C-alpha cells in the first residue's frame, strides 16, 4: 500500500473522495496568479502549473491570524478554535521542504501552538516536478524535483496516470481511503518515475554552489556588494512575503468599538519599520543593511541555528522582483567574493 497508480480519468473521483472527508486546499488560478484556496464543492483542480504565485505556507501560516479576542475592560481572552484537518493537494516538493525547515524554528525551545497545530492537521500531497520553472534551483540547496521532505504523499505524473507513493502514515491513510480508485503500481512504474524526475533534474538550469557561503558570509559584512545590490532595491516585501521559508510576523491589537483582538500578520525584514525602535533609532537604517540581513538570515544565521539553509530554491523572489534583484546572482557574487 505504499506505491499506487491513479489513472487520470479517476482524478476527479479521487479529489471528490478526499473532499468528502477533509477540507481540501488546491492551487486555484485567479487571473494571472495562482494560489492555494479551499476547493469549492465539485471543483476539480488542475495540476498543470509550474508553481503557485503564493506559496502554500498560507494554509498553515495565514497572512493574518487572530491570537485571541477580548472585550475592552474585561480580562477574558478567547482563543480561536483552529479548523480541523486539511489536505493540501499539489504541493511542490520545495514548498513542502520549506514547511519542514520553518517548523524547526516554530519548534525551537518554545512551541508555537498556532503554527504547529495547523501543520499537524495538514496532510501534504506533493506533486513531483516534471517541468521546472526558469528560476528553480532547488537542487543547489538540498532539494530536488521529487524531494519527499515534509510530504505525506508524493504524486508523479507518468503521462496516463499518477504514481502515488505514501511517505507517512497520514499518506497511507489517504491511499487506503481511496483504495477502490487505485491499482497497485507495476514494477516499471517506479523506474518510469525515476526517468521523469531525472529529466526534470536535468532541466533545472540555474544553480549555485553553496559550499562555504554560510561560513563566509560574516567575513563579507562590509563588502560593497550589499550596497550595489540594495541600490536598486525598492524595499517592498514581495520577495519575503512570497518566500515559502520567510516566517517573520508582526503582532498588533485591532479594536472595533469595545471588541478587540490581538493578531499576528506577516511582516517583512525589507520594511524600515520592521526594526525601528520607539526612540526613533533604527539598527538597520538603510536598504543595504536590510538586504544584507535577508541574505544572511537565510544563508548564515539559520544555518548556524538549525543546520539547514532557509532557502529551498523555488525561485519566486527572482521571478517576482520588479527590479530584477536576483538571489542566485547575489549568491554568485558572494561566492566570488569569498
Amino acid at each position, binding site marked *: 500500500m505504499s506505491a499506487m497508480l491513479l489513472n487520470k480519468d479517476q482524478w476527479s473521483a479521487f479529489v471528490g473522495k478526499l473532499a468528502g472527508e477533509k477540507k481540501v486546499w488546491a492551487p486555484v488560478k485567479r487571473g494571472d496568479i495562482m494560489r492555494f484556496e479551499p476547493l469549492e464543492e465539485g471543483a476539480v483542480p488542475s495540476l498543470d502549473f509550474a508553481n503557485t504565485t503564493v506559496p502554500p505556507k498560507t494554509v498553515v501560516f495565514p497572512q*493574518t491570524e*487572530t491570537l485571541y*479576542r477580548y472585550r475592552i475592560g474585561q480580562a477574558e481572552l478567547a482563543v480561536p478554535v483552529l479548523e480541523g484537518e486539511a489536505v493540501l493537494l499539489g504541493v511542490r516538493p520545495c514548498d513542502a521542504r520549506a514547511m519542514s525547515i520553518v517548523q524547526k524554528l516554530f519548534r525551537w525551545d518554545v512551541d508555537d501552538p498556532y503554527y504547529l497545530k495547523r501543520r499537524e492537521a495538514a496532510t501534504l500531497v506533493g506533486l513531483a516536478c516534471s517541468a521546472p520553472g526558469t528560476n528553480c534551483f532547488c537542487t543547489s540547496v538540498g532539494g530536488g524535483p521529487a524531494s519527499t521532505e515534509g510530504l505525506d504523499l508524493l504524486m508523479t505524473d507518468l503521462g496516463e496516470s499518477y504514481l502515488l507513493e505514501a511517505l507517512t502514515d497520514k499518506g497511507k491513510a489517504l491511499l487506503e481511503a481511496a483504495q477502490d480508485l487505485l491499482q497497485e503500481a507495476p514494477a516499471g512504474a517506479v523506474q518510469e518515475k525515476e526517468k521523469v524526475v531525472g529529466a526534470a533534474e536535468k532541466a533545472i538550469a540555474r544553480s549555485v554552489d553553496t559550499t562555504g557561503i554560510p561560513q563566509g558570509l560574516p567575513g563579507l559584512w562590509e563588502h560593497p556588494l550589499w550596497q550595489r545590490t540594495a541600490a536598486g532595491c525598492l524595499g517592498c516585501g514581495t520577495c519575503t512575503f512570497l518566500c515559502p521559508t520567510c516566517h517573520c510576523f508582526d503582532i498588533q491589537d485591532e479594536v*472595533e*468599538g469595545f*471588541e478587540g*483582538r490581538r493578531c499576528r500578520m506577516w511582516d517583512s525584514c525589507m520594511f524600515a519599520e520592521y526594526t525601528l525602535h520607539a526612540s526613533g533609532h533604527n539598527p538597520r537604517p538603510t536598504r543595504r543593511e536590510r538586504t544584507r540581513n535577508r541574505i544572511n538570515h537565510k544563508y548564515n544565521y539559520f544555518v548556524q541555528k538549525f543546520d539547514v539553509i532557509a532557502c529551498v530554491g523555488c525561485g519566486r523572489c527572482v521571478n517576482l522582483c520588479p527590479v530584477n534583484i536576483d538571489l542566485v546572482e547575489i549568491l554568485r557574487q558572494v561566492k566570488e567574493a569569498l
Partner: protein
Amino acid sequence: MSESFEPNIVAFLCNWCSYAGADLAGTSRVQYPANINVIRVMCSGRVNPLFVMNALQQGADGVLVSGCHPGDCHYMEGNFYARRRLGMLKDLMEFVGIDPRRFHMSWVSASEGHKWKEVVQKTVDDAREAGPFQGFRRRQIDW
C-alpha cells in the same frame, strides 16, 4: 431592503456654518431624522478622505460632509480645497463600486436650518435606499 432598516450616518460638520445651521434647526424645532451622528470639525477642509473611509469601515451606511458656502469659509478657502478633494473621493468611491448615495457633501450656512433638514432627509433617504453597507465593514470580515 426591509422597511425597518434605519441607516447609520456619520456627518462631519464645519464649526462655523453647518454645525451652527444644525444647531439652528434644533432650536427652531425643525424635525429631521435622528440617524445622523454629528462630528464637529473646525472646517470642511479638515476632513481627510481617510475619515470617510474609516466611518464606512466601522459601520456607517452613509457619510455626509457639510461646510460653509463657497466664499464664506471662516478660513477663507478651506471649503474650496475640500470641494476638490472630496469631489475626487466621490468619483473614486463610485468607481470601485461604493454606491454614490452613500456619500454626500453640502453647503449649509448658519442661517439655513431648513436647508439642513432637507440635506439630512436626502442623505438618510439615499442611504436607506442603498441599504445596509455590509461589504466594507471591518468586523464582518475575518474578525
